């Protein structure tokens, strides 16, 4: 017995493997048009805006000030702190809803999928109440504008964004021999340097040494961000380790004052390194096609990467033009947020409907279930991001949460007489098997039949 009845057509691949499922809402199904959809104005970002970093940082700075004022026993400080925390939570919550709303309304779902793929590749998490409002800005400022250009530009934007600098402790890294470390009490923090090499670019198996990590970390000194004062990343040469640094055999900097351009130069070189091409190409292919992607697919993508100097549009095109991109349907399991988003899209919720979700309901319906499913909106526990393999998600506790979410969601959302078999066909296209259609029409109630569609293996795979 197989999960799917017959051959799966390209429309279904395009919608489910490379998007957030049916209804397609006018989304393209041909590779050329899917690629074209990555360029041009970011309509979804404009339609459902989030707080940008300057605004979010100002909330954080005010929050820190209020906390300080409480210590000084300034009368209204308590009330201010409380109001600011509300504001910060609201900014965070708006970010969560906006991500779902953009997916619900988009005509370029492949673009939204890539936003979240890269958001997990450059995984971040904010630490401390004062910085939580900044979290949503990362995807909008560091990922969305760069996902169809050169990887070098995406890498530079992501690695130097204040949310990343804070998450990977770059904000506390100081050149041991820098002016700022005159008293010798501060020092180097290698966290960001190590993760850029291990996770963002070369990959853990690549031949770099501890010396490369240390010298790269020295080169990164100067990059910093202070929530209390700054509205974006700043480069302070007085924090930077003086002198040239050698990373993977190439010398950077050394003449005159340390400069941001030296940091950009090493990131440019890392972005086109053959190990980066291989590591990141495989990761993209694994995310979209299979936990064990076809080697000829990944090598075609890596070759394109090398030939084009890391032109991401060309790399995506190489993937979509490869036969393996359109074979083996259903090999991947949707991550929990993808499952929720595709259910909302399938149930016909509009972006505006989603934005109207009241905070209390949003907590019960979205935030808590995502935490229970292991896919918290706040971000992953560590810089390697959320896992991508099916076995990490399809285990008893996680699947129980999906089933329960499916069964409760169809009770909450207005489904106006929608028949379960029709819903299965509308959301799954030719991925809806006769067995699934048979089963969902035998549910005791219409809602339960709809819930079974959402809980099915067919709906949870792509």
């Amino acid at each position, binding site marked *: 017995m197989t999960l799917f009845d017959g051959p799966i057509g390209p429309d279904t691949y395009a919608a489910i493997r490379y998007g957030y499922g049916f209804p397609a809402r006018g989304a393209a199904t041909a590779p050329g048009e899917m690629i074209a959809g990555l360029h041009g104005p970011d309509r979804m970002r404009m339609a459902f805006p989030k707080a940008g970093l300057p605004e979010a940082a100002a909330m954080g700075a005010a929050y820190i000030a209020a906390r300080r004022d409480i210590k000084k026993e300034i009368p209204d400080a308590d009330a201010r702190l409380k109001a600011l925390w509300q504001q910060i939570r609201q900014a965070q919550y708006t970010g969560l809803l906006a991500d779902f709303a953009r997916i619900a309304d988009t005509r370029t779902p492949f673009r939204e999928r890539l936003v979240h793929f890269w958001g997990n590749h450059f995984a971040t998490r904010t630490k401390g109440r004062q910085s939580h409002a900044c979290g949503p800005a990362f995807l909008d400022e560091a990922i969305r504008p760069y996902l169809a250009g050169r990887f070098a530009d995406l890498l530079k934007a992501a690695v130097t964004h204040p949310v990343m600098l804070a998450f990977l402790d770059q904000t506390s890294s100081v050149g041991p021999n820098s002016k700022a470390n005159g008293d010798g009490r501060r020092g180097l923090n290698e966290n960001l340097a190590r993760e850029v090499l291990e996770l963002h670019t070369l990959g853990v198996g690549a031949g770099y040494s501890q010396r490369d990590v240390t010298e790269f970390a020295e080169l990164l000194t100067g990059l910093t961000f202070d929530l209390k004062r700054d509205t974006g990343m700043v480069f302070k040469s007085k924090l930077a380790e003086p002198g040239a640094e050698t990373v993977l055999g190439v010398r950077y900097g050394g003449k005159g004052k340390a400069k941001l351009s030296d940091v950009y130069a090493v990131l440019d070189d890392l972005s086109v390194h053959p190990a980066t091409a291989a590591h990141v190409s495989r990761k993209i292919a694994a995310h979209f096609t299979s936990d064990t992607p076809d080697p000829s697919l990944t090598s075609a993508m890596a070759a394109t990467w090398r030939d084009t100097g890391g032109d991401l549009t060309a790399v995506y095109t190489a993937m979509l033009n490869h036969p393996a991109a359109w074979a083996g349907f259903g090999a991947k399991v949707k991550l929990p947020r993808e499952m929720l988003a595709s259910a909302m899209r399938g149930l016909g919720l509009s972006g505006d409907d989603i934005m109207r979700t009241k905070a209390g309901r949003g907590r019960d319906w979205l935030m808590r279930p995502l935490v229970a499913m292991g896919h918290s909106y706040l971000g992953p526990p560590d810089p*390697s991001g959320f896992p991508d393999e099916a076995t990490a998600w*399809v285990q*008893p506790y996680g699947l129980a949460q999906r089933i329960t979410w499916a*069964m409760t969601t169809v009770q909450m959302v207005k489904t106006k007489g929608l028949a379960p078999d029709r819903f299965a066909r509308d959301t799954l296209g030719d991925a809806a098997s006769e067995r699934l259609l048979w089963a969902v029409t035998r549910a005791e109630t219409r809602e339960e039949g709809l819930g079974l569609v959402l809980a099915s293996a067919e709906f*949870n795979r792509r």
Partner: protein
Amino acid sequence: MTPVSRRGVLKGGLGVACSAAAHPLMSTMTMAATPGDARLVVIVLRGAMDGLDLLAPVGDPAYAALRPTLGPRAAETGLPLGGGFVLHRAMAPLMPLWQAGELGFAHAVSTPYRDKRSHFDGQDLLEAGTGMDVELAAQRDGWLNRLLQAIPGTEARTAFAVGRQEMRILRGDAPVYQWAPEADIEITPQAQLLLERIYEPDPLFSAAGGSALELAAQLGHATLPPLPDGSRREPLAAFAAERMNEEARIVSYSLNGWDTHRNQKGALTSALDVLQRSILSLKDGLGANWSKTMVMAMTEFGRTARENGSGGTDHGTGGALVMAGGALKGGRILGRWPGLDEADLYDRRDLMPTADVRAYAAWAMRGLHGIDRATLERAIFPTLDMGDDPGLLA
């Protein structure tokens, strides 16, 4: 019909629908290569357990002065274990195990974590099983997962992370199952039958969904029968024992409540009460399988040698390891006692660790699972020196 708790329909005779036979993977599993009979339970005591109150060194001349209120109580009510140590009164129900050699301790142990005394970093390091040479943020997987990868014939349900809390100790490339005994699935019996049909051709969903429905149907902790001594059965342990009577061999869960900065007298008594009930619940639930079981309860670090001004203790370094099980050669306190004179303390404030807690875990795995020393010292606990064999197993 609105969805009802799966548990609510358990008595309705629908158990057949989720019997083992309904899930093809379950029958193939039992025929495949098996990971052996030994059971290993690792309990993570989150919050830093005070080893100096659990195993109070009342025979150490410096102890009384360091612990002006906690010390006299320990001396008065503690249970003598010999060698100048007394066991905290709350652990009294475990004394029969001590006498039977099924309870033991290692004193003055720690992970390689030093100086910053952060719970989160300390727990991350404990679960990663690495040394301080690896940056905390770079530690991706847990040592129990690496153990699984070294044991032949394991599959996802060989290892269970129990409870809602993430167990990083089990995270990694080897698939593992997670379940919380209080978890439930909102689904009607008819929908459940249909869902099983829907999942049937998909081995991954069929196995995980089948297990989920089956586990959700089991008794919740509200209805657990009491332990033989009449005390409350600890639900995580009760669930762990059930799984280990089936296919699970490695289980890990957390017990919280050890961060006793204030009023340690009451707080530690409550936490230890849960721990002792957890151990007794494992023993009772495992029945004959208890003889093949090793339980290790470990914490991220110990607490200050000196009592603080609120009748509590603060974050320290050296602590204690609790071991239990029929596979243990117990009735002993292992380790080298460093003394409590100010010059003997770590940083002049904490119990000096004289052994790496990972070495005890490594020797347990050496004995239980036959893992070779090179794998233990390089792959499972990178850079660990296991030292001499303490002869942990019976």
